[in-house]
Structures are given as C-alpha cells and as structure tokens.
C-alpha cells in the first residue's frame, strides 16, 4: 500500500470512529414516559409543629445545668411527621408519613414524587395532616385536571398561605 493511500485509509478509519461517537452523542432518542401521557408531581417542603411545647424548667433542673448553659425553658427541637395522601380519580395513589429532615429531626418534611398519568381528564385530591390530630386532615384541596400530553403538573404547598397550589 502506498504511503498516501495508507494515510488516507488511516484517516477514514479515524473519521468513521469519530462519526460513530458523534452519532451516539444524541441518538437514540430517549423517551421518559409513554406517548400520550403526562406527569403529575407532588412536591413540597413544609415543617410541622414541634412535637412538644416548650416547658418551663424547675429551679432544681436549672441548678443542675452547667452555669454557662442555664436556660429557663426546654424546647424540644424534633418536629412531628407529616401525613400526606394523593387521590387520582378516586383512588389513593400515594400515602406517606413524611419524617422531618435533619439529624435532630428539626428540619422540614419534604416530598418529591412523580406520577405518570395518561393525558386527559382526572379528578385530583390531596390531603395533609401536620398537627397532632388523630383523624382528619388539616389541609385539603381537590380539583379536575385536564392533563395534556407531556405536561408537567405540579402540586405544591405554600406554608405561608397554608394551602395547596396546583400549577
């Protein structure tokens, strides 16, 4: 093989290899959810009340504390878990008790869940309990959703307003 021909073949081999790499840089196309479906996402960050109220310490208890760490009240940091449920078309598809975050359990509870639903009309209902009550829920919202193909529908909760937000 002459040297020019040889170099030409070498170059073509390298081009072919690089072209294969370029082809795989955006193909094949990946489809995350089936055609004709959308995503309903339930996500919020919300901290419930502390598990217990602050308690006034007795003089004896205060005296037992090191002088530089003496305080009048003992306020437990740990928050209570939040219970949340999501119904779609009358069926509960998500139910969870969300533990508080943080090593001391004093951070907010959080949820980030995706649900793939066929596009079209759906009845949604979301409920949340963030107080010590044993039954019932503190916050609820329901509505009708017209889910478009590939739509990302978010169910959020605004702590400031104390209400669920559909968007």
């Amino acid at each position, binding site marked *: 093989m002459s040297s020019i021909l040889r170099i030409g073949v070498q170059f073509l081999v390298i081009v072919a290899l*690089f072209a294969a*790499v370029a082809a*795989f*840089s955006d193909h094949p196309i990946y489809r995350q959810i089936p055609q004709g479906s959308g995503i309903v996402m339930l*996500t919020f960050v919300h901290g419930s009340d502390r598990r217990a109220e602050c308690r006034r310490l007795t003089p004896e208890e205060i005296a037992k504390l090191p002088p530089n760490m003496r305080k009048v009240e003992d306020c437990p940091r740990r928050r209570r878990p939040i219970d949340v449920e999501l119904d779609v078309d009358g069926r509960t598809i998500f139910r969870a008790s969300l533990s508080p975050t943080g090593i001391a359990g004093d951070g907010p509870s959080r949820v980030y869940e995706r649900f793939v639903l066929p596009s079209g009309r759906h009845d949604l209902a979301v409920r949340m309990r963030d107080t010590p009550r044993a039954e019932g829920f503190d916050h609820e919202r329901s509505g009708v959703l017209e889910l478009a193909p590939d739509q990302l529908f978010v169910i959020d909760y605004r702590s400031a307003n104390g209400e669920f937000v559909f968007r």
Partner: protein
Amino acid sequence: MIGAIRILLRHGFELIERPFDRLFGPALNPVAQLGALGFFFFWIVAVSGIYLFIFFDTGIERAYESVEYITKDHWYHAGVMRSLHRYASDLMVVMLVVHMLREFSYDHYRGVRWFSWLTGLPIIWLLYTSGITGYWLVWDRLAQYVALVTSELLDWLPIFGEPIARNFIATGTLTSRFFTLMVFMHVAVPLFLLFIMWVHILRISRPKVNPPRALALMSLMALIAVSFWKPAVSQGHVDLARAPVEVGLDWFYLPLYPLTDFWGRGAVWALLAAFFLMVGLMPWLPPLRRARPAEVDLVHCNGCTRCAEDCPYEAIRMVRRTDTLPFPTQAQVNPALCVSCGICVGSCPSSSPFRRTEELRTGIDLPDYPLRELRERVVAAAEALQDSPRILVLACEHGGAAGRLSGVVRLPCVAMAPPSLIDFIISRRHAEGVVVAGCAESACYHRLGINWAKQRFAGQRDPYLRARVPRGRLATIWTSALESRRFDQEFAAFRSRIAALGPVKRDTHAPAGAAANPADGSASIKEEIGS
C-alpha cells in the same frame, strides 16, 4: 473470575489491536495511545471552551439565545468550536473507558501500578461532572432533563434540606445566580480534572501525554470533518411547564440517567457505589505477587545514571555516594515502586556475561533472578539445543514466545537482557542465531522495554550492541501472548535465514581492529572464538 474476564477482554483487544497495528503501525496505533489521546482531547475541549466562553451569556435568560447565536449565526467558527467541544468531550469518555479496560485486560493495575489505577477513579467523577455541568449550560430541553435528573439523584442523598429538583419544575424559581454557579463549576471542575490527570501519571516514567504528531493531526482533522458533517445543536428552549420527556441523550455521559426511571435513584447510587468499591479494590483482588526488588551493588556501580534513565516506573533515583569510590552519585532503588522487570539490569554497563569474576556480579541486579543465573540459563538452554541451526530465544514472559518449551530463556522483560548477552551467545558459539521475543510492539507489558531493546540493538541507546555482532544472526519478534502462531511463522523464517548463513565462523564478527575490552572482560573476539 476476575482473571477469566481479564483474559476474555485481552482476546477482545487482540482482535482490535493487531489489525490496527498493521494499518497504523505500532507507533501510531490509536489503541496504544489512549491516555495520550485523552490528554489531547482535553486540550481541544479546553481551547474550544475558552473560545465559546467569549460568546456565551452566563445569565439564565440569555444563555440559550447565546448558544443559538453561536450555533446558527456563527456556525462556521463558533459553531464548529461547539461541535469540537462536544465531540472531544465524548471522545474523552471513550478514551477513558477503553484505556481503563485495556489496562485491566493487560493486568496493568496491580502491584505498584495501584497508584495510577486508583487515581484514575476520581478522573471518572470529575470528567462526568464537567460534562454534565456543560450540558446544563446550554439550557435547552436536554439541559432541563439533565438538571432534573441530576438534582433528583442528589436529592436522594440526605444532604440537602430542600430538594434541588424543585428549582426545575416551575418558572421563576431558578435564578441567574444558580446558573452562574454552574458556569463556575464547568470551569473549575475541568481545572481540577487536569490536576488529577497530572497526579495520575506522577509515578510513571516518560508518560505519554502527547500522541504522535501524525495521529494528533489526523484526529484533529477528523474531528473538524465530523463537526461539519454533524454539527452539535440544541434541543429547543427549556419549558419548565412541560416535562422533558423526549430528549436526544448523550449516551457517553448520561447512560445511567434512564436507569433512574426503571430502577430508582437509590439503585443507581448503589450501582455506582458497588462499581467504584469493586474497581477501587481490584488492585488487591488478588494482590500481585512480585519478586524482590532490584538491589544496587555499590562495588560495581559507578553512578552512570543509565538504570535511572531506563526505569519505566521511576523506581530508581541517583543519590549522593555513600561509599568511598570516586564517583559523585549512586543508584538507589525505591522498593515500593520497583516491579522487578530487570530493565535496569540490562541497562547497567557492568552487566556483562563475559566478566570473569569469581561470581558474576553487576551494578544493579534482581535478587530472585540475578545476571549470573541468566547466564547460566542461557548456557544450559543452548546446550540443550539439538536442531540445526541452533537458535536461542530470549523471551519476555508476557509475549508470544513465553510458552515455548525448548530453546527459550524467559525474562521478566526483554530489556533485562544486556546487549552483551547477545554478543556472548553468538561469539561463544552457544547458538547460531538469537531471537529476542517481546510483547506486541504497541503493548509492551513494562511500557518501555521494547523501545529500549530496539534502541540498544540499533546503537541509539547505551549500552549498545557492539558493532561486531552480526545483525543477521539476531531477530526481534514482537508478538502478544495470544500470537504464538505468528511467532512460530517468524521464527521459522528466521531459522531458514540462519540455515543459509551456516555456522558462526571464526572471523565472522571479529573485524580487524576489534579491540579487546578489558572493562567487560571480553578480551578479543578472535581469541574467544578460537579458544
């Protein structure tokens, strides 16, 4: 199990490498230049990235438009640079993966090579972080997908108070400040990557960080050609109200992302943790059993530095003399880095089998396979030769001749054989021909052994093969352990040539004026042959 996988992979690489050897030649074979090509593609990515940064708008509102401006309005320079940036990054991943598999298949990760193997692992993380943050910056549908899945993966770890992914599910939640952080990471992480790449090659002597110019030029031309053929483009502006459900994934950087949909994020993290734990422990599964490291014999060391020059593992350095001999330096072996390849023995000018000292000693030697034993094995193997012409094979234990049963003296590396050993075999008429049989030319087990042997025989590197040795009686055959058939063919051809030459004649390689060399005790070749 690991051994079986290694052998299987080795067969696979043989199938690819040998045809590449024939087409490109051993020096230009891209499969033997993976690390160097990785560095080369890094520089292409760096230069093209700096160029693109001139046009790129780091604000979240304008980022996508600026990338479109680069790609469409200035396709002929900035657009090409974008494609070079993308494809060179992808090629870095390819180089990394193939390089890692190849080093594994050739058992180049155990023993003292654990350092390079282990420092290669952060390179994987840093390269992927660089690439993923890069895709983020385009702020197209793929960027949205990458941002979502990456943050969902990170959110799975109990580190962040609020899920980061919430930033990418609604408009107005993401600020330019967060985007600027991504830009910073995309610049800072590659710099750190370069630093770790440097650490990765610290313990290697003469690391190949630049591919041969011809290969580099061809690679650059090919990249430019591919960039014109298939320009890198964006996949539509981010739309946070719609899920990025259909994206053209970069399968080199994002192959695990779809798995989060099928397996869940925890399983992907578990897979990554298991992979890196296993790969990290591999150098010790099982540990490489190695011979005792080389030892310096100061009586025979004049501090010539050749062993330190030739050591492929930076295991020898020259230090101030500790004895009374009148030389400024002496060799010192670092036992932690020495692999007992014996290349230093072959480089030592004292390593002459002609020496007539009571016990053959040299300046630097392997305690488990000293030069004395090598000479004894050569003499014994030569005496056992029965076929005519008699041909002795000095075989690398990793090459295609290692499995031969007779007429073979095995060495850890062919460069352990000092050139004077060839002279010794021919001039003492231990054989009519000598074959030096190493690994495949582009895959020397001890990295530089073939190079040094070739240069010594060609008179380009000290210690030289003496001019009096008839070159027709010496053959070098470079074959991998799986190419024993090719070795047999080349060996048969050499045998025919030696048969035509006939026996070693008294004056064949004793040219007039070939002086005695008292230093190596060879006396006169005429005298030796005549005796």
